[in-house]
């Protein structure tokens, strides 16, 4: 058996055992409300996790292809969120939409994805492409500059106040009850987020697996020079990767806005860190890994909020990140890096 694959299977088996053990603990021994509470947290975690997964995908794709940590990714997500808000306000706001709500939400997603996609293209062109052959530290510093530039530009343009999506007014406060009125509650908004995220991820998987572009992306991330010799233009493929990754982040930004209503110029920082955590936990560079990692980070955050308290949930997530980076830097589904001399 392929050693990398068996490693991944062992990782997954360990993860599954851990999750099952935690579930039993939470359902039978937890001092709080038992299984309804646990499954409610799990549902919330899955909703949150699908947003993180979308962010993590952009991180992971860019890292896979350029070996570059794109610090600005979280801020692209923030800008996407603001673009969605701008579309919402232009088309009448949440209380009196000028066009049918479904169309309005679709418009928000499409415009935000295009906007952040083009932003990602511009960032790549200006901050990273000139540094393709520079020492490793140069693009990192440049990325830091981009993140700071975007954050403060947003502060300058949109101000420091919260903007309100009012997603519940726009769509619905209602949801699905599972197991009666005191059972698990899933809002329709949450359903929309999960379905949207799954659709986007399936589209991405299809693109990477079955199209020429996807094939080129895999080739470039495997060996950029070799791909160039085979007639693939790496610059174009890298630009496309940035576009797709940033568009996914923009979609995640709109989802965040719909779900949590309030956005402001600093939401990108923490979300970016969590997306990065998800990418690393799943195995950076691996697309299924990013999805799994995002889900896991969302679940862990939600459980930590429920069973510990809200303040420490971030610390738990980052503690896990540091642990994974130290113990298993290739993550759950990544292939261990072989250093060639």
């Amino acid at each position, binding site marked *: 058996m392929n050693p990398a694959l068996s490693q991944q299977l062992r990782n997954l088996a360990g993860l599954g055992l851990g999750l099952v053990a935690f579930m039993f603990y939470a359902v039978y021994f937890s001092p709080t409300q038992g299984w309804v509470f646990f499954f409610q947290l799990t549902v919330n975690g899955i909703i949150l996790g699908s947003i993180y997964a979308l962010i993590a995908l952009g991180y992971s794709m860019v890292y896979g292809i350029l*070996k*570059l*940590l794109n610090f600005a990714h979280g801020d692209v997500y923030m800008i996407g969120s603001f673009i969605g808000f701008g579309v919402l306000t232009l088309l009448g706001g949440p209380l009196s939409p000028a066009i049918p709500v479904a169309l309005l939400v679709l418009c928000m997603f499409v415009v935000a994805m295009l906007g952040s996609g083009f932003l990602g293209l*511009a960032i790549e*062109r*200006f*901050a990273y*492409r*000139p*540094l*393709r*052959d*520079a*020492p*490793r*530290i*140069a*693009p*990192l*510093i*440049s990325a*830091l*500059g*981009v*993140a*700071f*530039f*975007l*954050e*403060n*530009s947003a*502060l*300058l*343009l949109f101000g420091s106040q919260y903007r309100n999506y009012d997603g519940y007014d726009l769509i619905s406060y209602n949801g699905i009850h599972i197991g009666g009125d005191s059972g698990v509650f899933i809002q329709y908004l949450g359903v929309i987020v999960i379905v949207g995220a799954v659709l986007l991820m399936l589209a991405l998987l299809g693109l990477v697996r079955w199209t020429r572009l996807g094939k080129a992306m895999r080739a470039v991330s495997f060996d950029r020079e070799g791909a160039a010799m085979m007639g693939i233009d790496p610059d174009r493929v890298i630009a496309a990767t940035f576009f797709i990754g940033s568009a996914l982040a923009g979609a995640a930004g709109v989802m965040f806005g719909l779900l949590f209503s309030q956005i402001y110029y600093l939401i990108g920082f923490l979300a970016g*860190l969590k997306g*990065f955590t998800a990418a*690393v936990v799943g195995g950076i560079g691996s697309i299924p890994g990013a999805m799994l990692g995002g889900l896991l980070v969302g679940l862990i955050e939600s459980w930590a909020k429920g069973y510990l308290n809200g*303040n420490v949930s971030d*610390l738990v997530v*980052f503690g896990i*990140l*540091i642990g994974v*980076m*130290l113990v298993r*830097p290739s993550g759950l589904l990544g292939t261990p*890096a072989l250093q060639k*001399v």
Partner: protein
Amino acid sequence: MPENAPPTPEPTPPGMQIGVDTWVEQADERRQRRTGVGGRISHLWELLPPAGKLAFLTPAIIVPFLPFMNEANLFNYGVFILIYALLALGLNVVVGFAGLLDLGYVAFFGFGAYIYSFLSGTHHEKGHVYTHHWSAQYSILLAVLICALLGLFLGSSSRRLLGDYLAIVTLFFGQAFVIFTNTTDPYGLTNGSNGLANVDPLNFRAFGQTLTISSVKGYYWFLLGCVVVVLIVLWCIAESRTGRAWKASREDPLAAEMMGMPVNRLKIMAFSFGAAIAGLAGSVFAAAQTGAFPQNFSTQVLILIYAVVILGGTGSLTGMIVGAVAIIVSNQVLDSTSPPNNARVIFYVALIAGIVLTLKPSWRRIAVALVGTAVFGLAVHAIVDAVWSRGTAGQVTSGGFLTGVIRHFVLLPTNPGRLAVYGYLLMIVLIVVLVQLKGWWRVVAYVPTLYLTAFVWENLLIQNPAVTRYVLFGALLIAVMTIRPQGLFGTAKVEIV
């Protein structure tokens, strides 16, 4: 392989070509660059021994500040420049010498300040009273030592981490510090977001004598002494076995390891060394402002330190001093408490310097761009004035001696609001377009871009100088990295294929 180089030096495509060594190929060109007055001066500067550089630099820092400034300005400019020079010198060890990205550096600065404040000061909160009035030399020493140990601890994680993962771990370290200081802990050690306020000034007590530094001028001289000592120590280290080993492991860790250098230990040493210098800066800073507050150690400060290091040129000690002067002066001038007209003058000077630098060899193009902008601006202003009079009826924000020029040149709508926001976005788009263009088209594109920049500045940026400066520093990091990665004083990296 210079003999394999093609006979006609084509414009080199990005990246290296096989068999072409651009560094050797451009040797004559570089020698040519040395001939001008500026070139000769920079050549002489490079010939100068370090002691001579120091002899030039020290008065260059002192002269502009001491005699002409009142207390507040001396603190805002003089003391801050020296603090940031110290911080940049420390970060330079990590980033410049050892080539590691340390995004938690500002936490060491904070630790230094908090440890000093704790050991020399009075705090009582949540029923706990902490009154220690240690003599300054001991508390500074302890702060420096603890920071060095923390650096050792953080650096030891670099053993197992790749470059990028290390950056993230250090970023968390910095964030953890911010969270820790902002959250009031059960023992009231840090007093949450209010910070520690009753901190002693520097009290050196020995042999029954007490020397207290209480005036701003005193701190200025003390910090100057620290900077000079650190400069000398760092210069010695940079040229020593350890310094050369740092540079070797920065360039190629694998090759360095093969040559028998303990790469891991070197990395940890660099971290620890940088952290110690930050701790020193932090403790003096806490004493100088007699307090330590969480917002003194935020991400903004980190970016500021990075801007100093990157602008000055990683690896260059001279660069750190010059970078600190340039960045801190612009930072303080763009502060919301400083009169806006100073910021305006600096902004326009920087704008013109930017044009001159980007179009440099051709004076004709510079002249066309500037004159074109002037004519274009007057024309646009006249047209808008005739068509939409509210578009020019606004007030100039504290114009000073430039009021007349601005009123007849820049569009000032009575209520810019959204228009200014669109202007900002359009300006970014124009800059994006401008960079793509070549030759004379670029000069033509300069005209509307410059005019729009002036419009955005007068209507949006000057209202929020404190935010604008961070936008500019972010842009500066990108621009320096992409255009001139070695900064002002660094040495260009030579890569021979």
